[in-house]
């Protein structure tokens, strides 16, 4: 190389002209300003986007049938996933992959007895508030929950849970889920055998279902539920949950409540991950569209900004591009992340609703934020 001495870097070139060594980056500590954006059906991986710069910081390996969860203390990124040894055949492998949040190195794989096979959805893999226990929903097609010791990185017991799905941790108790009989099932894990108790029925699972992508707020131990017609309820979780009364999101905006009748066109909630909650302020963001009943998967045309305390829609934000998934950062100046059919991520100020960034080709999947799950 003696005969090929490069010149000094001309001004403007960020990289210069000296021979270089390759190396691998590390990530800064997990930030509240990040969004973990899942690729869609065809696009593998979960892209970590910095909400301030709109830049991609890295990628967490997530295959099609996987669920990502963040350790509440930020010490690990967990991916519960299912793959086969020969892609479309061979040996089925269910496990939780444990990744270092700084190096994104694979630290461990915790084998599981099974998992639900479904496109990425919220609430199928949740973690206890202390970060010690993971709950992985299984469907074989009988319903059960894998209770995983995340400290020892070891599968624990399997709790059979007929007729229920979509999990939330319950601090000091175990976990809870929604059931087809319109109840909440709370599973207490203190004893040798799990003890399942059901709340009184409070919704009609076939007539006006609660979206299973509901929100659980660790800070207050509260779940926020929304039904197809637009009824909002909160439930204080515990050994026996206390379910609040239902109120209409449409009425909260000064419109008539949603209805199940055909030909009744109204603003209706719809999408996949169609709600996000800013915990500190109790601000709920909901994707809404115009349509009849049974349009629960239709992408949102507007974001409705709901103040849970006063039960008022504070603002309606029209969207340039319809969104299917929505999440919000949990810091004091929240950012909204949205994805949709287009496969791009829109990052928007959660207060001024100004669009900050549009990141192309991220995939149109669900989104996670630190403290937002």
């Amino acid at each position, binding site marked *: 190389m003696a005969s090929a001495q490069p010149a000094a870097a001309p001004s403007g070139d960020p990289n210069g002209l000296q021979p270089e060594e390759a190396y691998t980056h590390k990530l800064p500590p997990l930030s509240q300003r990040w969004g973990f954006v899942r690729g869609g059906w065809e696009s593998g991986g979960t892209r970590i986007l910095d909400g301030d710069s709109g830049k991609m910081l890295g990628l967490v390996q997530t295959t099609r049938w996987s669920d990502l969860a963040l350790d509440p203390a930020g010490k690990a990124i967990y991916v519960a996933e299912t793959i086969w040894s020969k892609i479309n055949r061979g040996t089925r492998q269910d496990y939780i992959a444990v990744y270092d949040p700084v190096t994104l190195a694979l630290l461990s794989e915790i084998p599981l007895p099974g998992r639900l096979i479904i496109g990425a959805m919220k609430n199928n893999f949740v973690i206890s508030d202390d970060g010690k226990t993971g709950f992985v929903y299984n469907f*074989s097609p009988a319903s059960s929950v894998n209770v995983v010791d995340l400290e020892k990185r070891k599968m624990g017991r399997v709790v059979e849970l007929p*007729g229920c799905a979509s999990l939330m941790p319950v601090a000091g108790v175990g976990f809870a889920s*929604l059931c*087809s009989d319109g109840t909440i099932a709370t599973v207490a894990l203190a004893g040798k055998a799990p003890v399942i108790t059901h709340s009184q029925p409070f919704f009609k699972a076939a007539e006006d279902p609660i979206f299973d992508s509901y929100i659980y707020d660790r800070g207050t131990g509260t779940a926020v539920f929304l039904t197809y017609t637009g009824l909002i309820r909160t439930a204080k979780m515990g050994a026996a949950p206390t379910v609040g009364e239902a109120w209409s999101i449409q009425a909260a905006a000064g419109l008539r409540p949603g209805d199940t009748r*055909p030909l009744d066109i109204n603003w209706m909630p719809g999408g996949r991950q169609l709600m996000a909650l800013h915990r500190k302020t109790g601000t709920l963001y909901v994707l809404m569209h115009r349509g009849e009943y049974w349009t629960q998967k239709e992408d949102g045309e507007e974001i409705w900004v709901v103040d849970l305390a006063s039960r008022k829609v504070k603002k309606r934000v029209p969207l340039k591009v319809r969104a299917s998934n929505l999440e919000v950062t949990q810091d004091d100046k929240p950012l909204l992340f949205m994805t949709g059919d287009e496969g791009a991520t829109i990052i928007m100020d959660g207060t001024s609703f100004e669009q900050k960034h549009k990141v192309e080709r991220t995939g149109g999947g669900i989104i996670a934020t630190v403290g937002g799950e």
Partner: protein
Amino acid sequence: MSGFDLDGMGERLLRRMAGNSSRRSFLTKLGATIVAAPVFPLLPVSRARAAKPDRSPEAKTEFARNAQTKDDTKCNYWRYCAIDGSLCSCCGGGVASCPAGTEPSPVSWVGTCINPDDGNAYLIAYRDCCGKAGCGQCGCDNTDRETQLYMPQLNNNVIWCFGTSSMEYHCSTAVMVGKAQ
């Protein structure tokens, strides 16, 4: 909503399945009424209201009002009222049959769809064809009476490739089970 009569179907299915313990065991675990077509088991559907059906245009969903009976490669073909996925009719299969090299799942999610020609409601089993990379053609996502994960047999997001040699999703069929009432 799914106001169809399930009682007539249950007994025959239970007899048929007596010889199949593994399949019976998962169905038994769910501990509910069982729905079945003449030749394959479906997952239980919880008993819905027994209300008399109203088939007037005013009572039809948007999908039902616009459904057609001529072309099963279009999303608005009447049987597809709660399908989610690629139509097997566009993939080398048919409305009720799998493309070469794929395998129909023995279980499925179900829909209740109204035939616009006779105005009757029919129970449709959405059976996934499994074993190969996604077909990718004719993606549809219809949601009449489609509910959430805690009623999996009425939720159209789950991959129904149970009991097949491979769980890779290829496409979805809409198999006629029978009149809903």
